[in-house]
C-alpha cells in the first residue's frame, strides 16, 4: 500500500532526484526559522555562559574582565557554601519527590474509581499547579507566620507545639519543600491518573478472573504497566525541583543563614546579588551539568522513549 502510493507520487511529479531536492528545500525552509532562533537564544547563551565562567568578571567593572582559566571552578569546589548547596539540593529533591509520589499516586488511584462528582473533584485537585508561583509563595508565608499564622493556630488547637517553619535554620528547607510539593502534586496526580486510565479493561478483568486481590492488582499489574509514565513524571519533577527558584526566593531567600540556599539560589545570589558574573556562570554551568547527568540517568533507568 505504502509503496504504491509513493510510486504514484513519483509518477505524477518529477524524477527521483528532483523530488529529493524538492523535499530538502521544503525541509530546510520549515526548519530554518525555528532552529536558527533556537540556536541563537538557547545554544549560544549556553556557550557564552561557559566562556564567561573562565573569566573574572565583576559586573560594575566590565573593563577589568580577564581570563582566569579554571580558577572559578577550583574556587567553587573549595567553597564550602557551594558544596553544601549541592547536598541541600539533593535533600530538597528527595523530600519533594517523596511527598509528591506518595500523595500523587494515592489520590490518582482514588480518582480512577467510578464515583459521582469525580470530575469536579479532579478539577479541584488540579488548581494549585496553575497558581502563579509567587502568589503560592506569599500565601504560604502568611500561613507560616510563627506568631499570627494559621498553621501554628491549628497546631495549638490540636495541642501540638508551635513550629518555626521557614523562620528557623532547622525547618526552613523542609518547609519550602512542603510548599513546592503542595503546588506540584497535581502534576503527579494527573500523569499517574492518565497512566492508570490507559490500562485496558481487559487486563484488569483477566486478573480479576484469575482471582487477584485489589492489592495484588495494584502492585503486580497496574504499577508495572505504568512504569514508563511513572519515570516520565519523576524525571520532569526532578529536573524542575532542581531548578526551583521562585518559591525559595520569595519564602526564604535561601535563609535563615544559608539553611535553604539551594543551587539555584546560590547561583542567583552570586550572579545577580553580588554581580560576580564569572563565578555565577561557573556555578550555573556546574548546576546544568549536575541536572543533565541526573536527568540522563533517570531517562536511561526508566527506559523512556520519546519517539513514540
Amino acid at each position, binding site marked *: 500500500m505504502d509503496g504504491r*502510493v509513493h510510486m*504514484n507520487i513519483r509518477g505524477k511529479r518529477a524524477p527521483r532526484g528532483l523530488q529529493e531536492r*524538492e*523535499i530538502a528545500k*521544503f*525541509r530546510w*525552509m*520549515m*526548519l530554518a526559522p*525555528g*532552529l536558527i532562533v*533556537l540556536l541563537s*537564544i*538557547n*545554544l*549560544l547563551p*549556553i556557550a*557564552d*555562559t561557559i566562556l*564567561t565562567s573562565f573569566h573574572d568578571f565583576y559586573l560594575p567593572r566590565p573593563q577589568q574582565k580577564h581570563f582566569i582559566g579554571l580558577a572559578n571552578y577550583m574556587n567553587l569546589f573549595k567553597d564550602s557554601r557551594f558544596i553544601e548547596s549541592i547536598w541541600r539540593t539533593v535533600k530538597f529533591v528527595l523530600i519533594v519527590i517523596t511527598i509528591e509520589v506518595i500523595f500523587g499516586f494515592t489520590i490518582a488511584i*482514588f480518582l480512577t474509581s467510578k464515583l*459521582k462528582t469525580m470530575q469536579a*473533584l479532579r478539577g*479541584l485537585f*488540579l*488548581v494549585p*499547579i*496553575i497558581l*502563579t*508561583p*509567587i*502568589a*503560592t509563595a*506569599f*500565601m504560604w508565608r502568611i*500561613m507560616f507566620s510563627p506568631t*499570627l499564622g*494559621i498553621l501554628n493556630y491549628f497546631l495549638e488547637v490540636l495541642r501540638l507545639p508551635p513550629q518555626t517553619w521557614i523562620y528557623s535554620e532547622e525547618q526552613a528547607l523542609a518547609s519550602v519543600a512542603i510548599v513546592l510539593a*503542595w503546588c506540584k502534586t497535581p502534576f503527579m496526580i*494527573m500523569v499517574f491518573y*492518565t*497512566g492508570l486510565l490507559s490500562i485496558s479493561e481487559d487486563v484488569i478483568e483477566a486478573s480479576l478472573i484469575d482471582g487477584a486481590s485489589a492489592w495484588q492488582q495494584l502492585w503486580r499489574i497496574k504499577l508495572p504497566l505504568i512504569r514508563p*509514565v511513572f519515570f516520565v*513524571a519523576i524525571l*520532569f519533577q526532578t529536573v524542575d525541583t532542581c531548578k526551583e*527558584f*521562585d518559591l525559595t526566593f520569595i519564602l526564604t531567600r535561601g535563609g535563615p543563614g544559608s539553611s535553604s540556599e539551594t*543551587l539555584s539560589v546560590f*547561583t*542567583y545570589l552570586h*550572579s545577580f546579588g553580588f554581580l560576580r*558574573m564569572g563565578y*555565577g*556562570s561557573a556555578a*550555573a554551568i556546574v548546576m*546544568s551539568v549536575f*541536572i*543533565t547527568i541526573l536527568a540522563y540517568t533517570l531517562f536511561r533507568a526508566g527506559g523512556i522513549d*520519546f519517539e*513514540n
Partner: protein
Amino acid sequence: MKTNIQRKELIKVIKIILLWALALMYLFPLIWTLSTSLKTRVDALSYPPIFFFKPTFENYKAVWVESDFLKYCFNSVIIAISATFIGLIMGTPAAYVLSRKRYRPKGSKSILMAILSTRVVPQITFMIPFFIFFRKLHLIDTHISVVIMHLTIILGFGIWMMRSYFLDIPFELEESGLIDGCSYFGAFSRIILPLAAPGLATTAIFSFNYSWNEFLFALILTGLRTKTVPLGVYNWVGYEEINWGGLTATAILALIPILVFYGFVQKGLVRGLTMGAVKG
C-alpha cells in the same frame, strides 16, 4: 446479598465524603488567601485567626486605585501574546518536519535532544549572557527583552508539544493531498494544520500561562515601565511591612485569566505538563 450491595454503596458514599474533605483541606491555602483578600487590615492580622467576618472589597479597590494593576496586566498580556505567537510561528513548521519520517533530516534525534536541553538547563544559564547583552544595548526594562527570555522556554516547549500532536495524525492524510497535486507546504497548511488546531490551542495556552506566571526573568529585566503581574504581586512587599490585603487581592485577580484558560485545555493538560511525553 442485599446487605452486600448496601455495604458497597455505603463504602462509595464514605469514599466520596473523604475525598471532598481531602480536596478542601488541600485547597485550604487558596481559600485562606481568598478570605484574607476580603478582610480588613485588622482582621487579617488578628490572632486567633478570624474565620467568620463581613467581607469587604476595600483591598480590591486598593489594587485598582493604589497600584498600576491595569498597567501590569497590559505588560503581561503584551509579553505573553508576543512570546506565544512568535514561538508557535517559528516552532510549528519545525515540529511538523521533525514529526515526519519523510521530511526529517539526518540527526533529527540529536536536534530533538538539544531542544530538550532548554527544559533541563536552569534559566539562569540563559539569563547571565542575555543580561549583559541587554545592558549593552539598553534593552533592560523593555518588553522585547522579556519576550526573548520567555522564548528561550516557549520555543523548545512548542516544538516538542506540536511534534507530539503531529505524530498523532497519520501520514496517509497528507499523502492523499500530495497525490491530488498539493505542494508539500500546501499539504501541511491546508490538511494537517487544521487537524492540529486543538493541539495548537493547547500549546498556546500553556505558553501563555508560562509567560503570565514567570518571575525570575521579569524580576531581573523589568523596571518601572514593564513590570508584569507577578511583580505586581511582589510590589506590595514594602521595607517595613507587607500589605497582605493588597497582595492577596492581586494574587486572586492574577489567577482569573489562567483559570478561565484551563477550562479549555483539560484534555491536553497532561501532554502539556510533560511536553508531549505522556499523551492524555
